[in-house]
């Protein structure tokens, strides 16, 4: 069979970085092809070359045997290549149908034919995506998962031959992922070629037919899924750092540490419409994990502790201080640090350099007048770049040029510089490759050993179990259970999350 899409010998260089070196990629009709690699491996760059966001320095892109050159995502769409990004870029306040047909509305005599548009949208969603919803309601009234499907419907309405799904599952829960996969299988049967990017290995093995691996901008090979064992995939993705995974301490060791003194005490803390009142104590040097489904109130809880949202019920105190915490400033003064799950909007400041991003929180705590001397800033930045293994190691690089995992490390550095007593990490490893993920988990354990308390929030249960001394489970915006020691195992936590009766 002929590939519908064939990229060969693709080179792309950015100032100072060789992002792609002689990369090949083939995509056949009716297959799901996973593009795998760590952060900075060149996955996004390859996709951007394919969709015309970047121009390749060298190389050939062929669609159905004919070479094509696209200069913009619009041209790519016309050529039959559509992309659904991780962050959905549709218009939340327009209706579902408008979102699907914006830019190619059905016209007659210069007027948009609304009825036809709505009817088409409804049929498209129902027939191809099994989605029966009111297409005249605004997009924002639907969940992220449904919005994602609508984004796919939009791509299909432009009669895509190649569909690129860039981390479509990272903000979906289990059942939503299953729904998405069912649809992907159906589209596959209809002959669509799907390029799938994800960090979840399970999902790759569940849905894909073929895997292409990139590492450091280089092509590592193309494999059929059933011919590539997981361990081999991982070792190809992260290279020789494989041993690192093995030397990871088990949860038994991690929870063997004695708990220190009480550090933070939240009693009956809550906020109307956000999270039900809860009690939570965190001790010195303790890692408390927060488990729960998306939307169960994990982030809301963390935001209350940090004062990012104001609580309207209960009290929140740090040991050795009288005041309650109502704003991020107060929280920082009390020694709390918070890495938001929304790295792009609430974390990095894209226009600033890595150095400026690192010193920002420390400088804010010192006040505007006591400027940290430039030399001192550079020393701090370089120290943490080394400590956290941030790439590229240039502290004057703009942070927006870094990959997601490295941005996350810069944010960690920002807070570590302030030497907090309590570090709140909301999804610190989301959208990050295995290597960086392990590094961050190890760092958390090291920090706790040195006496720092950590509140660790993650959608990945294994990760929470691995690092936490104690786990608090949330369900439907309520804290339902707290467990530690022997009862802390996958099944118990799952049960608490699901809320079913004990079997």
């Amino acid at each position, binding site marked *: 069979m002929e590939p519908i899409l064939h990229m060969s010998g693709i080179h792309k260089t950015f100032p100072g970085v060789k992002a792609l070196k002689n990369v090949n990629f083939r995509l056949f009709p009716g297959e799901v092809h996973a593009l795998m690699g760590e952060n900075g491996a060149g996955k996004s760059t390859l996709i951007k070359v394919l969709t015309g966001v*970047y*121009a390749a320095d060298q190389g050939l892109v062929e669609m159905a045997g004919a070479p094509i050159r696209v200069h913009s995502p619009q041209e790519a769409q016309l050529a039959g290549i559509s992309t659904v990004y991780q962050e959905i870029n549709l218009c939340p306040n327009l209706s579902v149908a408008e979102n699907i047909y914006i830019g190619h509305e059905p016209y007659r005599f210069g007027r948009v034919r609304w009825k036809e548009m709505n009817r088409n949208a409804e049929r498209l969603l129902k027939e191809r995506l099994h989605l029966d919803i009111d297409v005249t309601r605004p997009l924002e009234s639907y969940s992220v998962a449904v919005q994602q499907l609508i984004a796919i419907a939009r791509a299909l309405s432009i009669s895509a031959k190649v569909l690129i799904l860039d981390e479509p599952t990272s903000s979906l829960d289990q059942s939503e992922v299953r729904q998405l996969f069912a649809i992907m299988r159906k589209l596959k049967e209809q002959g669509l070629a799907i390029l799938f990017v994800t960090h979840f290995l399970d999902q790759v093995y569940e849905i894909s037919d073929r895997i292409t691996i990139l590492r450091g901008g280089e092509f590592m090979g193309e494999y059929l899924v059933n011919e590539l064992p997981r361990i081999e995939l991982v070792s190809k993705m992260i290279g020789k750092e494989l041993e690192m995974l093995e030397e990871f301490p088990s949860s038994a060791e991690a929870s063997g540490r004695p708990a220190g003194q009480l550090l933070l005490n939240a009693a009956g803390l809550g906020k109307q419409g956000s999270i039900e009142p809860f009690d939570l104590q965190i001790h010195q040097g303790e890692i408390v994990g927060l488990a729960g489904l998306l939307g169960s109130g994990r982030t809301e809880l963390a935001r209350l502790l940090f004062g990012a949202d104001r609580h309207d019920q209960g009290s929140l105190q740090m040991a050795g201080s009288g005041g309650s915490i109502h704003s991020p400033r107060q929280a920082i003064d009390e020694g709390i640090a918070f890495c*938001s799950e929304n790295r792009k909007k609430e974390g990095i*400041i894209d*226009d*600033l350099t890595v150095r400026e991003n690192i010193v*920002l929180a420390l400088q804010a705590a*010192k*006040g*505007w007048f006591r400027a940290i001397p430039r030399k001192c800033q550079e020393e701090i930045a370089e120290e943490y770049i080394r400590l956290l293994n941030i790439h590229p190691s240039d502290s004057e690089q703009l942070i927006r040029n870094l990959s997601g995992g490295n941005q996350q490390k810069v944010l960690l550095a920002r807070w570590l510089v302030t030497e907090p007593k309590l570090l709140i990490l909301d999804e610190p490893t989301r959208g990050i490759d295995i290597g960086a993920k392990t590094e961050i988990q190890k760092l958390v354990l090291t920090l706790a050993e040195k006496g720092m308390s950590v509140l660790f929030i993650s959608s990945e249960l294994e990760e929470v179990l691995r690092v936490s001394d104690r786990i608090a489970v949330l369900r439907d915006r309520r804290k339902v259970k707290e467990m530690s020691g022997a009862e802390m195992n996958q099944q118990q936590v799952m049960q608490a999350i699901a809320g079913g009766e004990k079997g």
Partner: protein
Amino acid sequence: MRKHRLVWPLLVLALLLLFNLIYSPDFFSIKVRDGHLYGSVIDILNFGSPLILVAIGMTLVIATGGIDLSVGSVVAIAGAMACLQISRASDPNSLISVLSAVGLALVLSAALGLWNGFLVSRIGIQPIIATLVLMVAGRGIAQLITNGQIITVQSSKYQYLGAGFWLSLPFSIFVVAAVFAIASLLTRKTALGLFIEAVGCKPTASRLAGVRSRTVTLAVYSFCGLCAGMAGLLLSSNVSSADGNNAGQWYELDAILAVVVGGTSLNGGRFHLAGTLVGALIIQTLTTTIYMVGVPPEITLVVKAVVVLAVCLIQSDQFRAALGGKRKPGTPAAAKSGVKPHA
């Protein structure tokens, strides 16, 4: 990187000056008369002073992601207030009455800026609307102060501010130099610049990093008001009168232009005070050139618009790439210029 950004504005300024030199060869000649220096270049610096002052304040406001449309009105109010005080004083020539008038006008301007900052940071009104309020109301306030008349003052001490000479140079140049130095020191030697850029780029992220973004916004808007007030004093002192209706008209637009031409993006974030300085000089030189060349008054604004458009285009990496026949849509470099690329 920062030096590189100055290249285009400086080039444009050089081209403008070159044009002037060719058009009138004695453009750069400076004569000494009564121990004072006179010449076209000195004039540009002197008459450009109020615009530079306003543009410096505007740069910081724009860096926080805001905009201040009220500066023109504040210019009028400050001038009116100072002139009213001096005209009422028993001895308009006494140092104390001049200083107190100047002080009062400046305090009032800073307070007006604070009001803008309050609307923006506390009430959460969009900057363009919040400052539009004062832009419109401010003209009214200025006319109330002057009672609808043009107040003329007879005070050589007050006149010194905008029309006097010191070390054979116009005194206003020193005022501008001082304010520019203070603004540079405040933003680059303290952490204020970092905070302003952080707030302008990502307000939410900055707040979560512990930056007091509201306080930064308040400070920046009142500084902008203060700068506008000083510009108003220079203007009214230069002509020894205050015209509530016309003083400082269109200053907000020229100042915004100067900032953008100087390489600061209207999206907020990174700002370049030196770029603004060059930008304001470009605008002022352009105005002077247009008068000198004798462009008919009815088309001066069109000529100005064409030149400004050319300056903005030449600074756009995308445009230059398109001229060179290379298309690189969406490259990060395109976002660097002050002109927001079509995206």
